[in-house]
């Protein structure tokens, strides 16, 4: 039987506010335990939550970017469960009326086609604290610094059909929240998290199968592996005559498998009800327009502009706009060196390669946009060849100074003096009479051999175009 996977994602984006969603305690990452947990975050009796304006603003930004309806009136609800890192005994969330309604996100599939994925809703809620089970004899340690950090939970429609599609959607949303400046997207620090609902059904069947909810998917790679494992598990189970049970399963990255969290099911009875401590949230059309005016250029629009204005292939435009930082870097290089295609090739090639190799972010790159543009200008004005430029780039990366300094220090300036090149060409021909004979006998492929000899003799510095021209004259003459 042919099976089809049905996947929906719940993404949690930690909003990049300075303070908690309902208190004025700092959200800075990495502080000493419980130094950023105030009376409200601790759930002390009598404390009242007051909503953070910026958290609302950020939610509206996402709503507008997803083409979603922003609710003029939304309601906060209590989600009740007991766990030590949730001191109040409930999480303040939104249930029946979320702040962001139905929207959509377009993703690109591997074959280059686009697919529109529906976003069911996005709602504001508070994060819980952290439980540490190691290091305290017989006890668990609780750090409530994270308690009350604003989250936006973004729920997709079950319209994803493979692990690859799920990852493409997640990456696109990850890029979007960073473009919007509402989330730093740091997955190691848990700023962007994913739960996946996965089920399978025979191709052609309309009803959904029973789904499992996968947790602990804190990297793109884990999401793909966990979903693929889960799809296989469910298909095998059904084909062996079993049935899938609705449950939460934890992904174990060491074993590459998902495991049932048995006994947690009763916890799903959250008994939501409107939080009497919070009044309905009203968002006026004026506020929405104010937020709309502050929206940056979004990835899809930027990509179209890069393809149009700079004449870049769509693929290149896609790569360069995959993050706002990379897009900004490229634009700075392109406008400063004056050759967008050259800039695109270098930013996607040498530059991205060096960043990856060093494990650095663009902000920490030893070669900034102006420095790279300075190098590319020397290719444009033919001071150096593209090949020598790679050597210069390497030296710049190692901190040997800007392009002109490296070129001067290492004597890499391209030889364009035609008499000097002619001399080298003559020498190369004289030194290889056998090859010359073969060439003249019709083996014209040997042109490459001679070019190589001359380039070698010049230490790679001879202008390749001139070398070609002069060689051709001499060999054919």
């Amino acid at each position, binding site marked *: 039987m042919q099976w089809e996977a049905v996947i929906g994602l719940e993404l949690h984006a930690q909003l990049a506010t300075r303070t908690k969603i309902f208190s004025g305690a700092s959200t800075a990452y990495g502080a000493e*335990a419980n130094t950023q947990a105030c009376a409200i975050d601790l759930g002390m009796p009598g404390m009242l939550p007051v*909503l953070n304006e910026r*958290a609302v603003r950020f939610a509206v930004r996402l709503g507008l970017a997803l083409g979603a309806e922003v609710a003029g009136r939304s309601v906060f609800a209590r989600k009740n469960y007991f766990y030590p890192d949730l001191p109040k005994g409930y999480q303040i969330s939104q249930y029946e009326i979320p702040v962001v309604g139905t929207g959509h996100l377009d993703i690109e599939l591997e074959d280059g086609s686009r697919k529109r994925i529906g976003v069911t809703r996005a709602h504001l809620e508070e994060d819980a604290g952290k439980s540490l*089970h190691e290091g305290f004899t017989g*006890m668990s*340690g609780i750090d409530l610094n994270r308690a009350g950090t604003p989250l936006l939970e973004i729920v997709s429609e079950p319209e994803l059909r493979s692990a690859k599609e799920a990852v493409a959607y997640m990456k696109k949303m990850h890029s979007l929240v960073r473009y919007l400046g509402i989330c730093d997207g740091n997955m190691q620090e848990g700023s962007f998290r994913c739960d996946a609902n996965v089920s399978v059904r025979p191709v052609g069947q309309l009803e959904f199968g029973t789904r499992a909810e996968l947790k602990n998917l804190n990297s793109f790679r884990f999401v793909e592996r966990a979903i693929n494992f889960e799809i296989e598990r469910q298909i095998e189970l059904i084909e062996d005559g079993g049935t899938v049970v609705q449950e939460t399963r934890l992904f174990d990255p060491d074993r590459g498998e998902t495991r049932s969290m048995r006994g947690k099911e*009763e916890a799903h009875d959250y008994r939501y009800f409107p939080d009497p401590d919070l009044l309905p949230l009203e968002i006026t059309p004026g506020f929405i327009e104010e937020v709309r005016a502050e929206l940056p250029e979004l990835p899809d629009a930027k990509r179209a502009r890069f393809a149009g204005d700079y004449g870049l292939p769509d693929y290149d435009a896609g790569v360069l706009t995959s993050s706002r930082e990379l897009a900004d870097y490229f634009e700075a290089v392109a406008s400063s060196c004056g050759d967008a295609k050259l800039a695109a090739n270098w930013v996607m090639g040498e530059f991205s390669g060096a960043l990856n190799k060093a494990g650095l972010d663009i902000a920490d790159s030893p070669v900034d946009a102006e420095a790279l543009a300075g190098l590319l200008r020397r290719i444009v004005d033919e001071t150096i060849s593209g090949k020598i430029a790679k050597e210069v780039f390497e030296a710049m990366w190692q901190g040997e100074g800007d392009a002109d300094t490296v070129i001067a220090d290492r004597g890499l300036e391209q030889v364009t003096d035609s008499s000097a090149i002619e001399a080298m060409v003559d020498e190369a021909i004289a030194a290889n009479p056998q090859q010359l004979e073969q060439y003249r006998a019709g083996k014209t492929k040997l042109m490459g051999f001679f070019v190589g000899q001359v380039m070698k003799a010049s230490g790679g510095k001879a202008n390749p175009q001139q070398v070609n021209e002069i060689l051709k004259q001499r060999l054919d003459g």
Partner: protein
Amino acid sequence: MSIDADEVAQIAHLARLAVNAEVSQAHAQNLSEILAFVERLGAVDTTGVEPLAHPLEMTQRLRPDEVCEDNQRERFQAIAPLTEDGHYLVPRVIE
């Protein structure tokens, strides 16, 4: 609508309330009567009436995103039953 003793036990468990079997039957009876009483509201025609999320006819005031809470960990932890290295300690919970 009525609820039985098992449902009382379930709700009590979710709320971490100790309700023993002897009284849960009585609770089930009382709660069922309350529900039946409230159900009489169902007779009112509420067509076109928005669900009420809060009895006050007001909307949420928003707070500027500025840090206004200092670190008062020592004061909070002075009244906590157990702490260590700045952490609150609780009986071990393992997933």
